[in-house]
């Protein structure tokens, strides 16, 4: 794609400078919304565009906003910049290089939600980035694009940065809200959903950075234009984070529905060293891994097609695994990650990830029996559908799919150790 929609900084130098961003039509969309549209009209456009949440769940953004408890104020908008899925690094590039388009998206979302306060929840490791963003927000205030009486209307908006402390679980929207309230970051019981009772028990929209960055172009160029990109049900561009055993890892902005093969081989330059591709993790560590068959490689990367072949698109962090990688080793890595990141609130995730990690350690150390592979799978399946939030459900996906597709790798580890 020559003309980027989300990664516009790749086409326009110094887009992270406000004057450059304004020169290129920056904040026209926000102005149009505030001065010429009702909040409901903005919601309707976003609904019509088919924009789906880019944080992983793919829930239609406009529909989510429509769930806001009517008549309850104040409301809040929270931008989820707790980007911490292994292999995901798209929000970071947007925040670093194209911050104003993101902030304009936050502003548009806030107007649509009738919120006068928005927060950007940055993962703790983004502390320097958070510092930069504060300067950007100051610049917007100075330019009169934030604050009281924006565009001479009675709409006012303030955006605050909130820094997390380095917990993966705080990317889960209710844990994020608890963390923002100063509590231990643990997911809340749902319902109530944030749209009904979110931050400080007030109606709250929580959207991912990339989702919000889509809003200015949607308002500028219309829902129909947006729908012309991507597939019927998965509209628009997507930043795919390509990493792993691939020649040119990085972010690639492509229409949703681009096949895996095109991303990995055309854009990513294929597998280095003439090795062959073995498997794909299509959504970081949080989805079943897929054996790299032709069927899989030819599958369009969108929210409908990937589930059909047994996985999820999630945040579209595609990790490529080549033939040199033992899947048991890989699953050990993902499980160690989830064991470390499990918040501990619910029993199956707290204990299950701990147990799976132990079993995989044993397998990795060559101290396991073949029965331990079955036990590992049983522990994982025992967690299935019982956890309080998605983390525990994600943790078992690489385990179950790994054993399902690559049992031989586990058995090899067990045998070689004996």
């Amino acid at each position, binding site marked *: 794609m020559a003309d980027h929609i989300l990664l516009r900084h790749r086409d326009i130098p110094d887009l992270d400078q406000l004057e450059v961003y304004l020169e290129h039509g920056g904040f026209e969309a926000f102005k149009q919304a505030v001065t010429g549209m009702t909040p409901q009209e903005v919601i309707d456009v976003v609904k019509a565009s088919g924009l789906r949440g880019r944080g992983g769940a793919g829930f239609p953004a406009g529909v989510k906003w429509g769930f806001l408890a009517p008549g309850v104020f104040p409301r809040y908008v929270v931008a989820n910049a707790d980007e911490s899925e292994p292999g995901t690094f798209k929000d970071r590039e947007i925040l670093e290089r194209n911050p104003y388009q993101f902030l304009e998206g936050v502003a548009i979302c806030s107007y649509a939600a009738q919120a006068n306060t928005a927060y950007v929840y940055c993962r703790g490791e983004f502390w320097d980035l958070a510092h930069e963003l504060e300067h950007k927000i100051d610049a917007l205030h100075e330019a009169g694009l934030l604050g009281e009486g924006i565009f001479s209307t009675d709409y006012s908006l303030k955006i605050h940065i909130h820094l997390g402390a380095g*917990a993966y*679980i705080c990317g889960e929207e209710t844990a994020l809200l608890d963390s923002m309230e100063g509590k*231990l*970051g*643990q997911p809340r*019981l749902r319902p109530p959903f944030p749209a009904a009772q979110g931050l400080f028990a007030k109606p709250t929209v929580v959207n991912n950075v990339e989702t919000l960055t889509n809003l200015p172009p949607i308002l500028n160029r219309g829902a129909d234009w947006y729908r012309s990109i991507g597939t019927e049900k998965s509209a628009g561009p997507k930043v795919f984070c390509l990493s792993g055993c691939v020649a040119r890892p990085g972010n690639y902005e492509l229409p949703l529905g681009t096949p895996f093969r095109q991303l990995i081989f055309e854009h990513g330059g294929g597998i280095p060293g003439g090795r062959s591709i073995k498997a794909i993790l299509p959504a970081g560590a949080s989805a079943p891994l897929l054996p790299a068959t032709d069927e899989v490689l030819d599958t369009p990367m969108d929210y409908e097609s990937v589930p059909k072949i047994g996985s999820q698109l999630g945040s579209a962090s595609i990790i490529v695994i080549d033939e040199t990688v033992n899947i048991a080793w890989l699953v050990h890595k993902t499980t160690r990650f989830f*064991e*470390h*990141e*499990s*918040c*501990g*609130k*619910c*029993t*199956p995730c*707290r*204990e*299950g*990830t*701990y*147990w799976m990690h*132990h079993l995989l350690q044993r397998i990795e150390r060559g101290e396991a029996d073949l029965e331990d592979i079955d*036990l590992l799978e*049983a522990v994982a399946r*025992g*967690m299935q*559908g*019982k*956890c*309080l939030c998605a983390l525990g459900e994600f943790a078992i996906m690489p385990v179950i799919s790994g054993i399902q597709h690559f049992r031989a790798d586990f058995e090899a580890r067990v045998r070689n150790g004996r």
Partner: protein
Amino acid sequence: MTKSLVTLTIDGIEVSVPEGTLIVDAAKKVGIDIPVFCYHPKLHPVGMCRMCLVEIGRPARDRSTGEPIFDEDGQQVIHFGPNLETSCTTPVGEGWVIRVNSEKAREGRKQIVEYLLTSHPLDCPICDKGGECPLQNLTMEHGPGTSRFLFDEKIDLDKHVPLGELIFLDRERCIQCARCVRFQEEVVDDPVLGFTNRGRRLEIITSSDPGFDSYFSGNTTDICPVGALTTADFRFGARPWELNRAASICPHCPVGCNLTLNTRREARAEGRDVIKRVMPRQNEHVNEIWICDKGRFAHHFASSIERLTKPMVRVNGDLVQVGWDEALVRATEGLKDALGRSKGGLVGIAGGRASNEDLYVFRRFIEGLDGHTVLDDNLAGGDLTREMGVGRGTDLGQIGPGDVILVIASDLHEEAPIWWLRLKQAVERGAELIVANARATRLDRYAAHIIRYPYRRAVQTALGLLHAVTKRADLSPFVGDKSLQKVAKLFMKAENAIIFYGREGLDYKASEALAQACASLLTSTDHVGRANNGLIAVWPRVNTQGAWDMGLQPIPSGLGEILEQASAVYVMASDPVADDASLETLLREDTFLVVQELFMTPTAELADVVFPARSFIEREGTYTSGEHRVQRFYPAVLPLGGTKSDWRIVTSLANAMGIELNFPSAAAVMLAIAESVPNYSDLTYQALTIAESQWPHVGGESLYFGGNAFKNSQGLGVQVGPAAEPGEPSEVALTMPVEESEEDGLLLVPITRLYDRGTTVLPSKVLHPRLERLHIELNPKDASHLGVIDGAQVEFRMNGKRFQLPARLVATVPEGIALMPRSLGVSVVNPIPVQISSVE
């Protein structure tokens, strides 16, 4: 507010429950135990432990029309989701079908138990909870027989973490259910516990200094579903199955919390039965399933080795132990001799910690000898609470929207913690609370209105309120400001109204005037003579109300005058000399003094005859709570040595002196009480043992939420109503306050702290780190004028004696005031001006 009923089917049983009921509770109502760990009916559900997983089927509906779908047989189609769901967080729905014991649900719960056990140390053989442990029980019922987890891979964590001096945490046993954390936050609003870290390293910590700083901390050990939290008092003390249990009533304050005393024969006590622990016994009308830490831990006085076990008589100036017969003869002769002399007569002094039975026979005995009975207490108004106390059927747990409660001149958090808790909860349900006191107290944070008056102006404030209601011309000098008018309006439109009055900053006469003003406020707003309305005194003792009801009352001018004229004094369950050292000389002279006591108190030391009395754990009897609930307590252990119940000592002596007082048992005394005390007319011991079923179900036999509170099978007590009938407001005589001239210096005001150093508290060593230390509290401004810094020594003279003690600077102490907590070593009976100076 009635909620509509929802009908659903649980394991084939149809049940109708109010809308909003959780599935887990609905199942319990039809006898189906869904196992839980994190859920507790007294806490908000969180769905953390995932133990209560069930299959939930909902009636299928057509997506476009929303109409229910029926199959070919005309049966409504029920749609079951792919996943099990938590029954503790899901309210019931109409037509739902719940499968609790399907294979899928049982398999799911079995898996949860297996996960829980992967981290559990399995040290049941040395665990205090072993035998009454929900995890143990649910493992037997729902868990797998064997674990697939390697024991060696268990995580090792600290096993003896003191969260404070009273509660210990075993981190290995903790299953992170957060019941303790939530109890502290939601129920008692002492959010001093929390989690830190995450995953398997998730850990309970305390954030207060001192650790776990809460008067209710012991309750967390009851609701802990494993042996993670244990009390310093009981841990490693006994196995639950070795314990016997007896129903009892807490003797420490007028709330009358229901207790279960767990006892065991103990080698260390020479084979005697001793109390191993004090547990709450469910009474939803009184204390629900909670007790304060004083009630839980301050029981050791009853088993103290300092207890008197033999009668004593004075021989050549010294008290020597003798047998009962000799002691009775000496007492009889002494009394006869003293009463035969021309000077004065007999004075009987009794305290509010004696039971109704004791006090009744005491009055009969003293009056039989033409003596005069005196209740040793300095709070007035028992006659008013008898007439205008809360009506039958009063339950603070039912106070809610539209109801008003006024608390005046009392610090309930320190004086009666469970009342404090019940009022906090009433506010949460929607009641409006008015707190009137001369200083800030912990109840203020729940108050809709706070009335702050200067010490010595409590009566004027109450009269001002009365004026706002009645516009009585004679009360115009007390007209208050707008806020008082607002409060008055609240009272006038309140559905129900209750007034709690105390004695802070008041002498006896002022407390009488305050009680009158409060009673008058209630009668003039039609808030007497029915349930959830009336006057409650925050009595200093458990049975002060009972003492008034039995016909005893204090002497407004104090004991000095009457003792000066007495030739014989008989003291039961009271220690007047400790409170007022000036009485010592009066009793030392040629007065014949008989004392029945637990300990060798300062008063007993002056006695001519001392009878050893039984403590509340060794005998039966009844106490009447501040809410007029008469409740029975039972013998828990064999009596100590040669002790006798107070009432029996009195009847023995009475009979020896020719006064007919023959009662074969405490129950028989109650029959006599029922005959002569109007409000008690339908009382029998049998009536006091009736225990209707209560919600939520608690107790060891229920797997349900597995708290350790005891089910109440020995009686909820009977509320004895006041004499006043609704609709006929009786005129309350008012005493107009006398303006007191301002004196130089600071006004020394005695206040109550829960953990004092009285004789019933001090023997409990477990509480020692938490006991209040002798000190005086000053406002920082006053202190600065006096040149006193925090912790510095100050001195003052009172009643001709010099006292020196450390000062504590507290911002909530009003200027011009010095606060002196009671029972710490310096006795201040009434507020008194003193000159305080710093000690160089």
